[in-house]
């Protein structure tokens, strides 16, 4: 009995590694190629003889993107916009997600659908009226205005995702706390939030990434250097009569770096959240 179960376990481990390695290859290979491309000279990229490894490693592409695109300013803008967006979403969205998950009230389903509806109207048509509004209140070309625009479609995403995680947290613990005399607020803060902490982090990561990568709104709502974000600056690299592959690839690598770093930090928090939840469970 024990033997077969151990054998099965080993089988499962092998299978797990096979799956993980295949998927990692699928995900990583294009990015590795992009990295190699970013180190190549244009002559090694646009060539009839496929050049797998750069014949001569060059950092010219990175230098070009740094000087041409005003990189530090763009990255700062992106960081500020992303941070404001996440903060607004977490502050307001967590409350709403909790209400949708744990409280029953009249029109709950309809209201939830209503939150979703907000996201459904195609950006193409929202942009112009949004621009008019932002102009009247003086928020065009401002990072805060852009963050507000992002909130309009990321907040519903956040609420819906987080509600799913709240739903998954067992109700019994909360009931037990309530029987012990805890208020709803107390139960929410002390029981549910810690349990759903990994979900909270995951949802925040998603909206952070979405805000970081957003293009259309950023393009239409900002013009000056003071508020322009990184993806818009990157699109500017794609010139009319030149598409410098190496520079574009360097831009791609630079644009995932901050996200990877953020994620590496957050992942630790996620693991801690999981263990905390497991202990209580």
């Amino acid at each position, binding site marked *: 009995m024990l033997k077969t179960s151990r054998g099965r376990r080993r089988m499962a481990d092998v299978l797990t590694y096979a*799956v993980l390695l295949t998927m990692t290859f699928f995900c990583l290979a*294009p990015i590795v190629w992009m990295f190699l491309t970013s180190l190549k000279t244009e002559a090694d990229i646009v060539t009839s003889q*496929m050049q797998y490894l750069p014949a001569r490693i060059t950092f010219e592409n990175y230098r070009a993107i740094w000087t041409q695109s005003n990189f530090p300013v763009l990255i700062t803008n992106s960081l500020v916009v992303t941070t404001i967006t996440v903060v607004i979403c977490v502050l307001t969205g967590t*409350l709403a997600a909790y209400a949708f998950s744990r409280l029953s009230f009249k029109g709950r389903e309809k209201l939830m659908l209503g*939150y979703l509806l907000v996201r459904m109207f*195609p950006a193409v048509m929202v942009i112009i009226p949004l621009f008019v509004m932002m102009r009247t209140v003086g928020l065009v070309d401002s990072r805060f205005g852009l963050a507000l625009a992002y909130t309009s479609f990321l907040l519903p995403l956040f609420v819906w995702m987080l509600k799913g995680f709240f739903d998954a947290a067992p109700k019994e613990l909360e009931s037990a706390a309530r029987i012990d005399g805890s208020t709803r607020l107390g139960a929410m803060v002390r029981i549910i939030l810690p349990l759903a902490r990994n979900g909270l982090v995951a949802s925040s990561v998603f909206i952070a*990434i979405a805000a970081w990568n957003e293009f259309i709104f950023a393009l239409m709502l900002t013009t000056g250097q003071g508020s322009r974000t990184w993806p818009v600056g990157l699109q500017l690299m794609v010139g009319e009569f030149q598409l410098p592959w190496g520079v574009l690839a360097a831009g*791609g690598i630079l644009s995932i770096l901050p*996200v990877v770093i953020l994620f590496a930090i957050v992942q630790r928090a996620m693991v801690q959240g999981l263990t905390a939840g497991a202990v209580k469970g």
Partner: protein
Amino acid sequence: MKSVLHRGPLAKLGDLSETRYWVYLLLFPSLILLLLVVAYPTLYGFVISVREMRLTRPGLNGWVGTKHYVAMLSDRVFWISLKNTAIWVTAAIALEVAMGFVAAVALNRNVPGTKLFGVLILLPYFLPNVVAGHMWALLLDPRLGVINDILVKVRILSSYKAWFADPATAMAATIVVEAWHGFPFFALLFLAGLKGIPEDLYKAAAVDGAGPIRQFRLITVPMLRTVITAAVILRVISLVNSPDLLLVLTGGGPGNATQVLSLYAFQTAYREFNFGYAGALAVVMFVILMVFATLYIRLTRVSKD
């Protein structure tokens, strides 16, 4: 513990949380925010769809009622785009859910090295659409594409293939690119959902003699249901609404082989400056999404009961 919480304003808030106003208090901030930002633009979108608004022909502007909707019925490109949108979204979502699920289950087994695998598998999602599009355009390029080179070297292809130039492969190629870019979304969400399932449930099931497959069917899937529902709906919405990837890869071509509604609306508005018709297209997309979401939510709830 309790005494710590019962102090000052917190205590008042705690008391308030016992009243029936509590739910409104929780919903108020997000609701106000959404209404402020979204109400006017959405109304504007609806109004525009029953008006003529062609920037380059200001003389024609004015109320036209259902004209645009009637015109849509006989618009060949609209029907092609509708069909393509359905195919594109369904195929991409199916692929992404399947891959996301497999990845999440594998990651959830916590074999050594999982943390590293976790970050690596999520990398594609971190790339902006624009970059992902250009990058795959280079990978699949009919002249410079490394994928073509490899396929020729292992003799699957006899010569470089122009994936985006052939209507038979253009759609499939864009779906693969989208799946690559989007499946980590599901992987991360499913993983977080799996972590939320208490170990005890599996232990109890194992004691009851349920094998891994039965455990999966009876515990994993039902426990993940709300996460899956939410993830699928959200992804469907963003896929239907965002044209950027196709804009970079094919621009809707060849012919109209990869034309989808979002791209069509975008081109109608910003290439032909026909905002009225683009608005009507947007409203139709909105209605389709709404019907889908309502049905889908109802369906998943029914099967749960």
